[in-house]
């Protein structure tokens, strides 16, 4: 088996050549290691990239890995003049995306109930931007579509998985006192 230095070199080359995100299984296969070991190697390598004076970092996106430039260097990269400034979303779109991200899979009716407003247009926009997708049908009358977030959502918002979403605050859940019988 190769030394860890050699393995790290191979991984960097693979990620560079791949461009797209590379599933951990494929990396494991190429470096001839099991998935668990590969995951440990990747975590260590991600840390190294993050903390060295590197212009590129490794991102984990839904069980796959991808190289990208350090986001804070954006102003310099914009000077290349070749990269298009990405358009942000409207507050309504962020709001809808938040509801979907935290509750997926959800129906349009659920989203509209929380937002208090028709959400057809914004769902279309989010689907067009590949941030959400249909993930099935609900098992209720009318079999409404269910929406969930995409891998592109994770990439765009810097999450490695949906589990990384900031936790929901608990203080809004009403307290329930059970009637404890006294004897």
């Amino acid at each position, binding site marked *: 088996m190769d030394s860890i230095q050699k393995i790290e070199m191979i991984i960097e080359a693979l990620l560079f050549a791949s461009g797209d995100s590379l599933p951990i299984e494929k990396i494991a296969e190429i470096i001839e290691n099991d998935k668990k070991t590969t995951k440990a190697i990747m975590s260590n390598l991600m840390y190294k990239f993050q903390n060295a004076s590197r212009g590129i970092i490794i*991102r984990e996106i839904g069980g796959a890995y991808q190289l990208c*430039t350090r986001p804070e260097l954006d102003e310099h990269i914009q000077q290349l003049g070749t990269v298009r400034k990405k358009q942000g979303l409207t507050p309504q779109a962020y709001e809808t995306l938040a509801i979907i991200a935290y509750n997926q899979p959800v129906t349009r009716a659920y989203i509209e109930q929380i937002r208090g407003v028709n959400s057809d247009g914004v769902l279309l926009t989010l689907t067009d931007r590949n941030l959400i997708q249909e993930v099935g049908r609900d098992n209720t009358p009318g079999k409404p579509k269910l929406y969930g977030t995409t891998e592109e959502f994770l990439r765009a918002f810097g999450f490695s998985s949906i589990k990384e979403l900031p936790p929901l605050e608990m203080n809004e859940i009403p307290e329930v006192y059970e009637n404890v019988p006294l004897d």
Partner: protein
Amino acid sequence: MKSALTDACTLKLENFEGPFDLLFYLIEKDKIDIYDIPISQITDQYLDYLRAMQELDLDIASEFLVMASTLLHIKSRLLLPSKESLLEGEAEDPREELIIKLLEYKKYKEYSRVLASRDEKWKGAHYKLPEIIPDIIAPDELELSPLTLRDYMADALKRYKDKQDDVSKRMARILDHEKVSLRAKIKELLTSLKKGVKLCFSKCYNTKEKSRLEVATGFLATLEIVRVGKAEIDQPVAFGEIYITPKSVQKDIDSVT
């Protein structure tokens, strides 16, 4: 009531996506405690906005109007205590449902801000196009199991064994058949009789030396020879010895065989 307030918020008007959005804005603007909304004050402000929208000839979505009526309904219930609350002494707060909905909405409003800031940050990350890597048809990787190999060996051997058993049984049958065929026995007897000697059946066929099948066939052969007139049998004592004597009249042997 076309006021400074109306003017200040004209630009903002179009940005309210829905009634919750507008209500939430009003609550945040005056730093109102969401758990104790002064319904009267909020309702007035809310209706002001709707009027401002009308003045600006903006289409007011039906959701805004539904919320307006909800607010007015809550306001009236607060002013006129219901029969139940008079009887029970304690009633459900008419604002409760609205508060729960607003709190739910607030939660996602806050998360949407988190998402927006993360989006802003990660928009700065740039990716790279994949290199062109030719597809390679790899030699198939064999997936083999030692136990499967063992099983195939056992199966092959069992099949072989079965076939061997089958073959030897068949051989035995053929050999037996050959030995005891009636035709062979007749020929054998005739050969002996041609020498002109009297045969003793028990000497020719006894179960100690020959198989039962052979003895039985021998007996049948004897009867056949007698029937065609080539020999005579004689049993002087019941259950005693049977003697076979050739007949002097010669007939064609082939006619019986």
